[in-house]
């Protein structure tokens, strides 16, 4: 092998620059919250690249909206767990007993009824539900942007993530503030001009249209504002990574 001194030096300098560059990139990524909560696994480098690229390039972009004529005549209702007795009691009461509790890093923790939420400014959007399996449908979603509710309870400025739970608390997820304050992130109570049907997550689901369907949790009951995800579940940001699915589903 012939290795010239020049080659040795340039390779050495390149390697040192590479290591220093990676160290600097990792420090900057940490400072700007560009590392997802499940970014420390075997797949962490890929997840971090995806999440960081999306946050740097698409923080404020709006999900595609469609004309009314493109609303799917056959929206596909994915499987849901069998309703519990408690859920059936809420259903019998016409969901007048349903509450959305908002707590954590907020000035005024509040429990909202559906009629409370309906007094907040309404927003409707015709967006596509995109399942990680590959199928999709377009529907109109009516509700109030999550940002309105967060504003109402006085979310504290150091909040970095919004954690949310379904009526069955083992189903939970979280989004960062870029998605939580995004104008299209909706607490949906209506679908296609009617009340949100139970099989589509009624009476209340979150819609995060820039991410895959599994981030749009159904049967929403509880929202917590936090500055860290470490204390929640296994600290991976949502229940999905515990089942092997990524936390950030914007791809």
């Amino acid at each position, binding site marked *: 092998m*012939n290795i010239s001194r020049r080659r040795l030096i340039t390779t050495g300098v390149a390697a040192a620059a590479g290591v220093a560059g990676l160290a600097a990139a990792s420090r900057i990524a940490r400072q700007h919250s560009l590392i997802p909560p499940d970014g420390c*696994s*075997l*797949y962490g*480098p*890929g*997840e971090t*690249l*995806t999440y960081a690229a*999306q946050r740097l*390039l*698409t923080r404020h*972009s*709006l*999900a*595609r909206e*469609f004309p009314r004529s*493109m609303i*799917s005549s*056959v*929206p*596909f209702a*994915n*499987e849901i767990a069998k309703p519990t007795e408690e859920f059936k009691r809420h259903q019998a009461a016409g969901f007048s007993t349903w509450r959305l509790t908002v707590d954590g890093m907020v000035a005024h923790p509040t429990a909202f009824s559906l009629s409370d939420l309906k007094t907040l400014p309404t927003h409707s959007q015709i967006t*596509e539900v*995109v*399942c*990680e*399996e*590959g*199928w*999709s*449908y*377009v529907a109109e979603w009516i509700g109030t942007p999550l940002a309105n509710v967060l504003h109402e309870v006085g979310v504290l400025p150091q909040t970095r993530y919004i954690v949310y739970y379904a009526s069955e608390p083992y189903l939970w997820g979280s989004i960062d503030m870029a998605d939580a304050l995004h104008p299209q992130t909706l607490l949906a109570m209506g679908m296609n001009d009617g009340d949100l049907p139970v099989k589509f997550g009624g009476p209340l689901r979150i819609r995060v*249209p*820039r*991410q*895959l369907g599994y981030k749009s949790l159904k049967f929403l009951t509880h929202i917590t504002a936090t500055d860290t995800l470490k204390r929640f579940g296994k600290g991976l940001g949502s229940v999905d990574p515990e*089942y*092997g*699915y*990524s936390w950030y589903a*914007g*791809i």
Partner: protein
Amino acid sequence: MSALGLCYPLRVATASPPPIAVTRRHTALVRVTHWLTVISFFALLVTGAELVISHPRFYWGETGNSGTPTLFKIPIPSSRDTVPTGYNYVLPDQNGWSRYLHFEAAWVLVLTGLVYVTASVMTAHFRKNLLPSPAQWSSSAIRDVFQKYLRRAPPGDAESHSYNVVQRISYLLVIFVLFPFVIWTGLALSPSFDSALPATVNLLGGRQSARTLHFFVSGLLVIFLVAHVTMISLAGFWSRTRAMITGRVKFPSERS
């Protein structure tokens, strides 16, 4: 070392005649990016197949699901019981790790491709080694290559050192048409990327069209892979593979 040694050092072995010379065939750039592409493509292929199994139905247009007509179905069982497949059993769900690995491998593939294309432009690799030369660029020359293939004639020594015209055209198609298109159709499946650049998916005719096209282009890449490995096997699998690992070929080429 000879004066030629700067770019193609000829090292004549001291062994007994006939003298076997060793020449440089592939640059380190080509070799490293080739094998990184092999690894990431294999990961993308396996995980992509797993993702198809979770919904082996394909559609055209913006939307499509188990309640709508399909463009075509793959007659295999699914890893989801919500998909009507005609089979009365459900395969295990492999989507979690498959998705993680698919996107991580896609990053490796895209970054490798960027390094390869940038460096190849800078070193004139495309112009010197992949663009067909004026002499090769004729229908008779292309016909000659195919006739040799059909006769299963072994490639001459020239082809151990340079690509023939059919190889050049297929490599250029893979590098500049198929890979860019598979990346484009893949990006079109990202809801967040589409929010920033809606034309990514709209130009393809909608989300489900993009998914179907992504599947078809992947199929074309698999056809290329099969043809590529077949040709390498015909030309001498180990000598060609060794050349892509060590960068060197021996000539006259030893054949068994």
